[in-house]
């Protein structure tokens, strides 16, 4: 019997580019007794529209939040972008009467009204705070103590601090602790909280690629065998774009980038195939073999 239940907000980037994140998340959550309820009639969280029309972003986000309020379930996202927007708008709807009224003037035209009473969580908050470290450690029977990795939490799971406040954005530790629960060693590296740059890829490719390259260099310098992400956009930058960076700068990194649930899954003894490890762009076979030792 599942004791925890969430409305699953999938977002756009994961079904578009990274089913491996979804496959591995569903797998470990199911094993941990977390039930996911599919979100009805979801639309884009609104994030891509904020730069072009703030009201439109608010309204699209609020439409999703209204649907969540109707279900009376907490929302769980896998994407930092979706989490950031939905959490922010939800809090603004609740705290700011002007925003609430403006947005609901629009929403009422389609028969909806959002109150800002939803609860929005990211996968790492569900794991760390609701499932809890004790249960995760108990499930991680195959301790990965031969593995050395680094974390990259990404920005929107922590910033702006005023709207999230679950950990210090300058020194994020939730993901680090989740990694350590698998038995893997989580190394420190230079400029850990630095942004991946993905949001501006559509406007300028050079800057994000340089940011990503810089981080890969810092990660390589500490001798990490893999990098762990919890956001599809960060993942696209470090994994999917890694070969491109290697070609553009004539360098070799070869750093496998895993979604956190893939790492957790291996520590729970789930075979790598069932965690879609083969879908990763940078070959992670060696990491998988270290994990099975």
């Amino acid at each position, binding site marked *: 019997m599942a004791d925890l239940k969430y409305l699953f907000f999938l977002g756009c980037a994961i079904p578009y580019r990274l089913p491996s994140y979804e496959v591995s998340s569903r797998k470990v959550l199911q094993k941990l007794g977390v039930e996911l309820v599919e979100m009805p009639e979801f639309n884009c969280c609104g994030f891509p529209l904020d730069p072009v029309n703030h009201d439109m972003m608010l*309204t699209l986000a609020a439409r999703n939040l209204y649907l969540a309020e109707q279900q009376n379930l907490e929302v769980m996202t896998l994407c930092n972008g979706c989490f950031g927007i939905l959490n922010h708008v939800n809090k603004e709807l609740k705290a700011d009467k002007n925003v609430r009224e403006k947005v609901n003037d629009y929403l009422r035209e389609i028969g909806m009204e959002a109150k800002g009473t939803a609860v929005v969580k990211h996968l790492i908050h569900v794991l760390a705070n609701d499932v809890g470290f004790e249960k995760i450690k108990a499930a991680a029977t195959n301790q990965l103590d031969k593995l050395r990795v680094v974390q990259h939490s990404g920005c929107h799971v922590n910033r702006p601090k005023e709207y999230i406040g679950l950990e210090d954005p300058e020194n994020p530790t939730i993901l680090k602790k989740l990694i350590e629960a698998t038995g893997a060693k989580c190394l420190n590296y230079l400029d850990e909280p630095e942004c991946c740059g993905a949001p501006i890829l559509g406007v300028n490719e050079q800057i994000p690629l340089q940011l990503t390259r810089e981080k890969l260099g810092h990660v390589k310098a500490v001798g990490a065998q893999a990098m762990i992400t919890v956001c599809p956009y960060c993942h696209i930058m470090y994994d999917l774009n890694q070969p491109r960076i290697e070609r553009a700068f004539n360098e070799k990194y070869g750093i496998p980038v895993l979604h956190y649930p893939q790492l957790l899954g291996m520590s729970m003894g789930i075979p790598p195939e069932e965690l879609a490890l083969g879908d990763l762009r940078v070959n992670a076979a060696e990491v998988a073999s270290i994990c099975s030792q």
Partner: protein
Amino acid sequence: MSKLTKAEEEAQKNETVLRTTELDPKFKYEISKLPGAEKVNVCFQCGTCTADCPIARFDDFYRPRKLIRMTQLGLKERLLSDDVIWLCSTCFTCIDHCPQDVGIASIVRALRNLTVAHGHMPAGYVAQVSNILKTGYAYIISDMRLKKRQQKGLPPPPKANLKNIAKLFDITGFSKALEKVET
């Protein structure tokens, strides 16, 4: 030192000289009425935002502090025609670090929103907006990908209510604004 040609001289002048006729003293009030940009006038130009901005480290022109100063001075035309405002990657480091709680990233957003209202939007955004209208998603998820999902045992992604979305685009005035955008 070699002598500058007339054209070079002219170019240099245009770059460095601020003409008072170019300044719109009301612009800072116009911007400060937009959500999140209310505090544009309390920026005291300390430069923390630029120092901590990841984009500023890799671009010679993107300087959040400078964008705020230009807004305060009322360099409206320059700001609304400058592609540099699209480089903010919304990491929100500047929001967390600003001693005056100015909310720089939200001001950059306000500048972008205003630019779009004036009919200019980068191509990448045009594509995403049209995808959202067509499918409810920011990206078009192809039939092949949908089939692969099925093979992996994943449920079909939820279907967006396109009628709702189209209506929201209309009543927020966004559809009208989009008509003005030159592509």
